[in-house]
């Protein structure tokens, strides 16, 4: 290579090299970054080269091999055809020739073009893909254009043009001024103005030399933007540093890069050699009097060496430990000489600023935070990868528009920025613009730009613990508060996560965190408490749940969770225990395990929303959850309930106290049952003509046969319980009256029986039914209120119940569910929706009713408007936005309104208002831990408190109410300190089934054929066979054994593990 002797030489060279690009020549870009290489891009390159050679089309098509990561690593390897911009992902070897052939004739291969994995939409141009559309890739774009190991390639893409401009200006002051004017701030996370730093360095005396350092010690887990720039475009760093040296008068440059980046080091070495050969580095650069050279120093991988004073010591060959500033490196750095240290991304921005002008650069971003910033977006999100956006972009935009929203069903809870010593920002603060100042205000840091998205399955205590574990290992240990502070914070967090925490722990943790932040020596220690402080600031509730209630709602902290199936059950049913008994064939023991906690086993075996299965480890770890509800059904169908029938105790201390319970739903009956067992005399008041509440009124018989309810309730009654039907609160009785009558305590459990109206014009005409009224009319009175074409508005369970009930009535032609969001957002149980569809119910999503149309006082249809999904609202769901001009009419004969229920407490409020406080949502306000209302002696439970909820929640509330009423009547303290609920009983694992029998995944609950079942009200779900049940039960992973296995056994197991290892 000839040495370029002057600025004009460089210009001339670029002119020659530009020729290819300007001619609009066809170019195939292949990515060979670290991630793409791991996905097999080297093979792709080989095949592409061979194909071009064998077809002899070298002069028609150019091949560029880039090093910068383009998109989500799992989507690699990528091929990009320019200038058309066709983008292919996950390219296979055999596809390459087709892509090249198509490109030659100006086309693209349709079936290989990038397809969005979620929406399935195809995108022909890279710029149209949502992930790219909202970005501004001024740094990353170059990594996609340039071959990192060919300097000519860089020069042809305007490379070293900025250097040209700087040298041609002849004024170092101009360069520093320009950088100052651009407003560029340090991209390593501190945000110190780069121009200011350079000015300070330029003002230092020259004798003995001055240093410039590129800090490429990128140690944050999950962050790789610096690596991507170094691998993809090393010349931009070199050019930036030469310009910096020219501006500040520095004589020596050092790139401090971690040894874990072999490809980056390789590309950098090649780039430095090429730059030297061209005379862009070394003595008398481009024929001027200015000399500068760059060396590489490889770091051994200590996280703290990213801190500038530690980095200097590491370069000097000493232990990488910070020292106290001042003096600052710019005064005394490497070997005591003035040193300016900038991050990789900062250096990469310099050529852009000089080439395009400071004013252009300052236009991007916000005032005081100019330019773009690269983030590495990872976590529970659909699109992961490097993202470059202008400063000031909101987190919401990055998470939902670029990132595509949550990867799973769980809602996004928080985002963690700035690497291990950054902090967490909760989802309700996602409108925060990302810049140095607002992040600092929110209690976190920009850091080097890591962004970890977390959903509701992430425990914030565990997150803080995880990062503190990292930091205590990476703290250099020089200063006491960082070394001991991180250790002690970790220790306290571990205590909290394992259920040993107290409220004092939280105070101590906070105090310690503040002191550590205040008193440590370097940036690592000063930011180390951020994970703790930010989680304490935004998620203190979670800490309190761990400490006070001994619960980890994300099911992460094992010592608090125990067996997830048990912890997920509102009743604390030991699901693992009865599943283990079923595997061993011990059906009676299994029934007892169920019945001990649950007074309604047969009901729950049919209609429970089985939170146990959602949390089952077998399902959460990638497989299918054990079909726990089906196993419960299997047991309850086969066992005689009389084997477990507790006898009521006799009240020993004089006359037994009397308790009044208003409402005989699952909550009321459960409370009555448990109180009666303790010897109380309970009177249950029921407004309808038979007990059962919502079990009877709302749940249709094809899901829950009437005789099951009757049998189950009957089994729970005894001589201590008296049921009075046809007595309604407000009409026949009131709270004051009950207390006057001598009841020691009153439990209100009247449920949520009133459907919320649509509040639309013309709603009160014949043919429109509120859903609960509709279901009651059929379930209780046997009338058939639907005919012809039936529409159901709503997406919850009562909508699906009403729809499926309507379908089974004579005279109904068709049933359509109208829901305003999409199928994914329907709150009804997925299996119910699926069953409804099987039966032929149409589900129209994204429609909102506008007007009820009637003729002569009778419904004829509804006018609807179509919606599209708009912005994400605070619940993390996309808000439906009506599309103007899409109004249309749906002709209907019957309309069921099922958009929600409430207690209707406002209409009976004269009765309830005997002092009982009611919320705006028409629920009764209680202390959630004691269920006590604001009136002493009056408790409330079930849907009346929570709004419409599930059966098992109501049973749990009833049980809790019974305990609280008992304590209240006895005059005991209502609240006792919580203990984690852990498995206690050891059940020896069943002998394994024969080889392979456990494979094949979950046994689906058999259902009656749709064509048959939709004509009648017979039960849809069918019980498992003994073989199926045994096979399913054997799939259980037995999470309980960790807590229950006897010691000897534990030892032999760990011994076996050791030997196996």
């Amino acid at each position, binding site marked *: 290579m000839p040495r370029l002797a002057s600025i004009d030489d460089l210009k001339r060279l670029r002119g020659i090299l530009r020729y290819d690009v300007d001619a609009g020549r066809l170019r195939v870009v292949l990515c060979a970054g670290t991630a793409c290489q791991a996905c097999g891009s080297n093979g792709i390159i080989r095949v592409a080269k061979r194909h071009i050679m064998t077809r002899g089309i070298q002069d028609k098509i150019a091949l560029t091999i880039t090093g910068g990561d383009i998109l989500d690593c799992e989507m690699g390897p990528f091929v990009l055809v320019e200038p058309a911009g066709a983008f292919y992902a996950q390219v296979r070897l055999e596809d390459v020739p087709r892509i090249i052939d198509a490109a030659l004739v100006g086309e693209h291969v349709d079936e290989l073009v990038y397809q969005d994995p979620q929406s399935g939409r195809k995108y022909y141009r890279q710029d149209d893909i949502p992930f790219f559309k909202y970005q501004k890739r001024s740094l990353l774009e170059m990594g996609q254009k340039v071959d990192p190991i060919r300097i000519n390639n860089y020069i042809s893409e305007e490379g070293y043009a900025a250097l040209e401009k700087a040298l041609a200006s002849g004024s170092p002051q101009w360069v520093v001024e320009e950088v100052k004017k651009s407003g560029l701030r340090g991209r390593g996370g501190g945000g110190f103005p780069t121009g200011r730093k350079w000015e300070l360095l330029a003002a230092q005396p020259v004798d003995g030399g001055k240093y410039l350092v590129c800090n490429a010690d990128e140690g944050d887990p999950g962050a790789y933007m610096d690596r991507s720039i170094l691998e993809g475009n090393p010349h931009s760093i070199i050019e930036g540093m030469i310009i910096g040296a020219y501006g500040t008068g520095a004589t020596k440059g050092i790139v401090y890069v971690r040894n874990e980046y072999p490809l980056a080091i390789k590309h950098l070495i090649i780039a430095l050699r090429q730059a030297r050969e061209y005379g862009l580095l070394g003595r008398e650069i481009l024929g001027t009097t200015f000399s500068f050279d760059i060396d590489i120093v490889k770091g051994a991988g*200590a996280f*703290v060496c990213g801190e500038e004073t530690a980095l200097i010591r590491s370069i000097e060959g000493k*232990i990488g*430990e910070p*020292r*106290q500033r*001042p003096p600052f490196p710019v005064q005394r750095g490497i070997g005591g000489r003035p040193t300016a240290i900038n991050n990789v991304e900062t250096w990469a921005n310099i050529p852009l600023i000089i080439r395009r002008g400071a004013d252009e650069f300052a236009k991007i971003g916000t005032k005081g935070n100019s330019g773009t910033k690269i983030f590495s977006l990872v976590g529970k999100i659909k699109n992961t990868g490097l993202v470059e956006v202008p400063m000031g972009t909101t987190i919401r935009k990055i998470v939902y528009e670029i990132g595509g929203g949550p990867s799973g069903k769980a809602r996004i809870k928080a985002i963690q920025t700035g690497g291990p010593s950054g902090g967490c920002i909760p989802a309700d603060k996602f409108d925060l613009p990302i810049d140095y100042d607002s992040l600092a205000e929110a209690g976190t840091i920009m850091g080097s730009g890591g962004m970890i998205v977390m959903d509701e399955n992430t425990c914030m205590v565990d997150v803080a613990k995880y990062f503190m574990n990292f930091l*205590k*290992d*990476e*703290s*250099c*240990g*020089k*200063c*006491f*508060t960082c*070394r*001991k*502070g*991180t*250790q*002690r914070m970790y*220790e306290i967090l571990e205590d909290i996560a394992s259920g040993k925490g107290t409220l*004092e722990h939280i105070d*101590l943790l906070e*105090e*310690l965190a503040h*002191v550590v932040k*205040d*008193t*440590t*020596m370097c940036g690592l220690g000063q930011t180390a408490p951020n994970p703790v402080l930010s989680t304490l600031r935004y998620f203190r509730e979670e800490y309190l749940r761990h400490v006070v209630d001994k619960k980890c709602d994300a099911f992460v902290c094992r010592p608090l969770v125990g067996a997830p199936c048990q912890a997920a059950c509102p009743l604390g049913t030991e699901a693992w225990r009865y599943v283990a008994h079923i595997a061993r064939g011990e059906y009676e023991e299994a029934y007892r395990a169920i019945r001990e906690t649950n007074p309604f086993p047969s009901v729950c075996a049919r209609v429970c929303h089985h939170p146990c299965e959602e949390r089952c480890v077998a399902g959460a770890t990638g497989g299918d959850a054990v079909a726990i509800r089906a196993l419960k059904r299997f047991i309850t169908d086969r066992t005689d309930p009389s084997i477990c029938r507790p006898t009521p105790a006799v009240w020993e201390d004089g006359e037994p106290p009397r308790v009044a319970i208003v409402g005989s739903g699952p909550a009321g009956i459960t409370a009555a049952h448990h109180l009666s067992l303790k010897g109380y005399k309970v009177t249950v008041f029921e407004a309808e003509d038979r007990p059962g509440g919502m079990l009877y009124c709302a749940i249709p018989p094809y899901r829950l046969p009437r005789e099951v309810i009757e049998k189950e309730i009957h089994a729970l009654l005894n001589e201590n319980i008296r049921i009075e039907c046809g007595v309604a609160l407000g009409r026949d009785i009131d709270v004051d009256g009950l207390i006057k009558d001598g009841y020691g305590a009153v439990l209100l459990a009247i449920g949520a029986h009133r459907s919320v109206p649509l509040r639309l014009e013309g709603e009160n005409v014949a043919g429109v039914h509120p859903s609960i009224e509709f279901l009651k009319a059929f379930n209780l009175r046997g009338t058939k209120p639907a005919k012809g074409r039936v529409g159901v508005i709503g997406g919850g369970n009562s909508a699906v119940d009403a729809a499926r009930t309507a379908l089974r009535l004579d005279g109904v032609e068709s049933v359509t569910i109208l829901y305003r969001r999409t199928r994914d957002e329907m709150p009804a149980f997925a299996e119910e929706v699926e069953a409804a569809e099987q039966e032929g119910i149409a589900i129209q999503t994204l429609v909102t009713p506008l007007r009820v149309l009637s003729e002569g006082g009778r419904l004829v249809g509804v006018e609807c408007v179509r919606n599209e999904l708009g912005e994400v609202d605070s619940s993390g769901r996309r808000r439906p936005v009506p599309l103007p001009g899409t109004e249309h009419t749906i002709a209907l004969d019957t309309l069921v309104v099922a958009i929600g229920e409430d207690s209707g407490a406002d209409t009976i409020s004269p009765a309830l208002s005997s002092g009982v406080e009611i919320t705006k949502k028409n629920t009764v306000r209680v202390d959630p831990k004691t269920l006590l209302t604001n009136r002493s002696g009056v408790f409330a439970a079930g849907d009346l408190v929570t709004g419409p909820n599930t059966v098992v929640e109501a049973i749990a509330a009833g049980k809790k109410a019974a305990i609280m009423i008992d304590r209240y009547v006895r005059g005991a303290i209502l609240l006792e300190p919580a203990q984690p609920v852990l498995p206690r009983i050891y059940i020896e694992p069943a002998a394994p089934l024969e080889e392979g029998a456990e494979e094949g995944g979950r046994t689906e609950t058999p259902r009656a054929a749709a064509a048959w079942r939709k004509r009648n009200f017979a039960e849809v779900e069918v019980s498992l066979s003994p073989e199926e049940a045994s096979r399913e039960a054997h799939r259980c992973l037995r999470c309980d054994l960790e807590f229950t296995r006897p010691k000897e056994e534990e030892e032999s197991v760990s011994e076996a593990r050791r030997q196996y290892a």
Partner: protein
Amino acid sequence: MITLNINGLSVSVEKGTTLLEVSRFYGFPIPTLCHMEGLSPYGACRLCVVEIGEGPRAKLVTSCTYPAEEGLKVRTSSARVVRARKVILELLLASCPQSKVIQDLASAHNIRRQRFRQEHEDCIMCGLCVRMCEEQMMAKAIGFRGRGETRTIGTPFDIRSEVCRLCGGCIYVCPACQLRCTYTDPDKAICGGCANLSPPCLEKEPFEDMMCYMEPCVACEITAASKKPETGREKEGKGAGDAIEDIL
């Protein structure tokens, strides 16, 4: 000369003076553990923090390293400083409960409870010994190894250092660990300094009855041990145990 304000008092000092020196000179006490005149400032124990600046820009800095600046406002015992010091002392006490120096400091700062889990370490990594060895004794026999919680002080490869002159300086300056000298285990000896300190007990007759200034007295133990028959140490050459016999 530089003029600055310390606890409301306007004072003038020479350029290059640290805030600690200024404060002590004017009679404002600041507790320290890792600081010693004659050794370079290190800033490791963080006990000497003082508050500088005002309003939202106020911050804590270590007075032992921070140079006096023109117009600086320093507070040596503001609420923020005292809170930080108390937590640091509580942490120190939890780690090194047996150090008399730390006990006294904690007591002087009115620390009446200990909220962290008790540990029994005998080093706070203040680095006094390392700096003493390097800067005053010019030996560099000992140094730091490891990182974070695994950080320790010792000789390279934990074998007796050839450059160690058994001067005992490291032990003399140690605020926490009078027991660290492993003289009885010469293979792991850091310095064996006690042999050079001419403990008073050795000069008096009968020295067994004397209260040793080191508890337990390392020197006496050695004397007692050296009376025992040799236990196969001779193969490893002349250990520190032999050295003391030479001296005696």
